């Protein structure tokens, strides 16, 4: 077995980075010509090139964050349980439940609770009133008639508008940042999981009934923060692979692993590009060859930087043999 492993491993000095770049770059050119989104999918996630760029740029917030939440083993096939947890975590504000109408002449706000929608979330009109009171403090006078809440205010138009915006944003239920919870059945295993827009791992830690060991978010930064750099690397590999596979472009996972490793080599997830991998290179010439040539050369001359010419780019620039492949071997004197 070690022999097979040795035979199939890549030769020393092979330019694996360039091979990886080309192996991802060529299929990337095919991608731009195709559609970016899939029709008919419940949750719209950026796919294809936009998503790939997002991953490689290591953005702090993906355009559409998304979490997959699995249930604990005992009730993983229980659709009702999934529904219950979904409604528990979905973020609901008063603005979502009610229509808020301002009457500036009478100086009052008419808040009509959508009882049907509210009861599906397990919220009563009294709960809304209570939360409103908490948010308002001593301000205004609240009157309730069935599902109609009247709020008398003794302030000018501008302040009334401010108050009405404040009321709309009051949290009734759920976890901040998590919206649009949908229950999805995994056809392979028959278990249910919750797919929710947004990402908030720290708050989900407090929720009972979910399998925290399988919680997943497409926000790589969030994974890095809560599970460490190695988990972030694994998530990066998984996400990039998924983007390529969905486009029907098979790329060997080893190329993706190399890119993910390079992005995670300095302990945090760094973007590929000016502010990350290429911009953080040690050699002045290698940085100058990439972007902002003058800036790097001028700064290096001011600081009196030295370049030991160890890398590939530097040696190409000055016309020396590159330390790659057959250029890597040197002669040793026999003593």
């Amino acid at each position: 077995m070690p022999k097979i492993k040795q035979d199939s491993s890549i030769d020393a000095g092979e330019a694996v980075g360039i091979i990886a770049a080309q192996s991802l770059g060529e299929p990337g050119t095919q991608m731009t010509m195709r559609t970016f989104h899939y029709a008919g999918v419940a949750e719209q996630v950026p796919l294809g090139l936009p998503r790939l760029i997002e991953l490689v740029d290591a953005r702090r917030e993906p355009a559409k964050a998304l979490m997959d939440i699995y249930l604990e083993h005992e009730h993983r096939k229980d659709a009702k349980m999934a529904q219950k947890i979904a409604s528990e975590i979905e973020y609901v504000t008063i603005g979502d439940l009610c229509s808020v109408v301002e009457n500036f002449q009478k100086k009052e706000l008419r808040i009509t609770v959508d009882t049907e929608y509210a009861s599906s979330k397990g919220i009563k009109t009294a709960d809304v009133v209570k939360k409103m009171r908490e948010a308002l403090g001593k301000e205004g006078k609240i009157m309730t008639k069935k599902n109609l809440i009247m709020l008398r205010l003794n302030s000018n138009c501008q302040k009334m508008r401010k108050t009405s915006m404040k009321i709309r944003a009051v949290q009734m239920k759920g976890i901040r940042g998590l919206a649009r919870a949908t229950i999805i059945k995994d056809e392979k295993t028959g278990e249910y999981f919750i797919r929710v827009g947004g990402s908030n791992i720290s708050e989900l830690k407090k929720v009972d009934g979910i399998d925290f060991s399988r919680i997943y978010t497409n926000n790589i930064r969030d994974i890095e923060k809560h599970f460490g750099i190695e988990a972030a690397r694994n998530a990066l590999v998984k996400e990039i692979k998924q983007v390529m596979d969905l486009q029907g472009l098979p790329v060997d996972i080893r190329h993706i692993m190399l890119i993910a490793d390079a992005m995670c080599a300095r302990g945090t997830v760094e973007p590929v590009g000016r502010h990350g991998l290429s911009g953080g290179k040690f050699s002045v010439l290698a940085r100058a060859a990439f972007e902002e040539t003058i800036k790097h050369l001028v700064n290096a001359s001011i600081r009196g930087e030295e370049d030991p010419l160890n890398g590939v780019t530097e040696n190409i620039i000055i016309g020396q043999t590159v330390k790659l492949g057959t250029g890597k071997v040197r002669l040793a004197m026999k003593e």
Partner: protein
Amino acid sequence: MSKSEQKKKFSVFDHVLVPKHEIVPDPEVGKILEELKVSRDKLPKMLPNDPAAKEIGAKKGDVVRIYRKGPGGEAVYYRLVA
């Protein structure tokens, strides 16, 4: 009761994305570096406040061995806590 206790004891290593980490004892480090032909500071880094590093109690300057699952079976990876 037991559930909240479980929650408290949650370890990042329970998560499917987190591979096994362990601190490499000092005498072994030299041998590994020689085998890999790198100097200590050229190893990939890991932050001291990384959740996984914290949990195994890795301090600045420690070398951490990581057992990754890859396409060719288990692979060993090293990171320097810095």
